């Protein structure tokens, strides 16, 4: 098990004892009736094995992106545990990453996980060149020799079909699709064990979307990292993932093999979602 999430919750605002029990899909609400806090993620359990690709679907506001941010720790969780197989304490026991110190957290985010955001502005530093962005991630993952770093940056730019002679250009001089590919280069350059993707192709035109998804899929096959993909586009989910979970009001209402979710959905919300396909 590379990723193991247990009873993970995120409550925005002051919480009370009813927050988790009185919200969710059953109540069709994420707002606690007593203290009016918003429950972003409500008691989520998930696990993922080496090389598996998990999709998260759900309506906007269902907590998909928040869940991803809790794993990457862009947002601090309120309750629960997240274990990653590579992350252990001194005695060799698996350690909850929510208890990680700042240095440990840096290791997790630099070496073990990478995140690809919908908006490349969140994943790239626009004060650095394309190559500089990738180099930063490579250096943080522990490679220190200039030539090694440069070679690795060139390798990933080439892999993502960015013209390598443009390595020293700044991100804003690239098109949106190219910026997204630079972000992918950066994310993969540290050789992560888990890749997190938040709506990686939303807003891109179809041909660029296909190129980027094909590329991600090819690299996943080649390198074999585990992946969590958040998308509201069932086509993207079908293309990339093996297993899908469906979220509503912060809870997982259904999980299963992706083809089963699409062809034999069980939960009323999933049936509505699948019947809304174009």
């Amino acid at each position, binding site marked *: 098990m590379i990723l193991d999430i247990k009873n993970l919750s995120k409550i925005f605002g002051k919480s009370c004892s009813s927050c988790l029990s009185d919200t969710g899909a059953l109540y069709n609400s994420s707002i606690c009736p007593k203290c009016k806090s918003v429950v972003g993620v409500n008691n989520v359990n998930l696990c993922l094995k080496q090389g598996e690709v998990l999709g998260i679907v759900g309506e906007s506001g269902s907590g998909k992106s928040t869940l991803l941010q809790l794993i990457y720790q862009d947002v601090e969780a309120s309750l629960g545990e997240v274990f990653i197989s590579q992350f252990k304490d001194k005695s060799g026991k698996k350690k909850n990453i929510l208890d990680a110190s700042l240095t440990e957290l840096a290791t997790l985010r630099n070496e073990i996980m990478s995140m690809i955001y919908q908006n490349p502005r969140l994943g790239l530093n626009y004060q650095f060149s394309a190559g500089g962005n990738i180099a930063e991630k490579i250096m943080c993952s522990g490679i220190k020799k200039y030539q090694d770093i440069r070679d690795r940056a060139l390798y990933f730019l080439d892999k993502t079909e960015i013209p390598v002679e443009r390595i020293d250009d700044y991100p804003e001089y690239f098109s949106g699709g190219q910026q997204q590919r630079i972000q992918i280069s950066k994310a993969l350059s540290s050789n992560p064990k888990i890749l997190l993707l938040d709506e990686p192709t939303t807003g891109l035109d179809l041909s660029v979307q*296909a190129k980027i998804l094909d590329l991600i899929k090819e690299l996943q096959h080649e390198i074999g990292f585990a992946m969590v993909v958040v998308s509201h586009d069932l086509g993207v989910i079908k293309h990339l993932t093996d*297993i899908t979970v469906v979220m509503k009001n912060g809870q997982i209402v259904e*999980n*299963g*093999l992706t083809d*089963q979710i699409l*062809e*034999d959905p069980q939960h009323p919300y999933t049936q509505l979602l699948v019947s809304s396909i174009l």
Partner: protein
Amino acid sequence: MIRLEVKNLRKTFRVHTQGGIEVNGFNDINFELKKGEFLSLFGPSGAGKSSVLKTLFRTYTTSSGSIIYYKNSGEGINLSTANESDILSLRKNEIGYVSQFLHMLPRISAVDVVSEQLIFKGESENSSRAKAKELLDYLSIREELFDLSPLTFSGGEQQRVNIAKGIIAPKPLLLLDEPTASLDKTNTMKVIRKLQELKKEGVSMIGIFHDLEAMDMISDRTYKLSRVL
């Protein structure tokens, strides 16, 4: 050696978007399948034949009953309750499904879609492509089409590419949904001959045919489904 054991299998679909009505898929299905045996599901349209195959592959969930798959080691796994990771690994190594129609992306050529099945298994790219071309040629696909997307082909050609994809790297259990539906006599015979070879190699298969003559040639047994009430 028993490969698959299906007991009291039942499937109902609950359609929440239509006020929660229940639709009966199939009822009380019982059969066993041995290693190297070919079982045909037989029955009128709407009897649930394709639904049974999809349930065996876990594209459909099981409403009740059990589906036990036995590996060569003798270990039995209930396909209707196994976790997703286990099903994924079974699909990779043990159970193949050949759908009625070809589903693929429009950016992949005929040779690539067939050869990647061997490449996934670890065979080299060159030999995989050579074998894929040989099989496509055997199934009467013209060489000039090899590097084009099968989605631009005729219905019968697409189906032959689909079969080539399904049988080039055979798994111990193959589920075949109307593999010969849109093929002419010559090509139907070619497919049947290939399936007979697989049977000799010990591959167990469950198939659905509309062509009764083809069904008789390949089947060891048939299992009759009647229209669901």
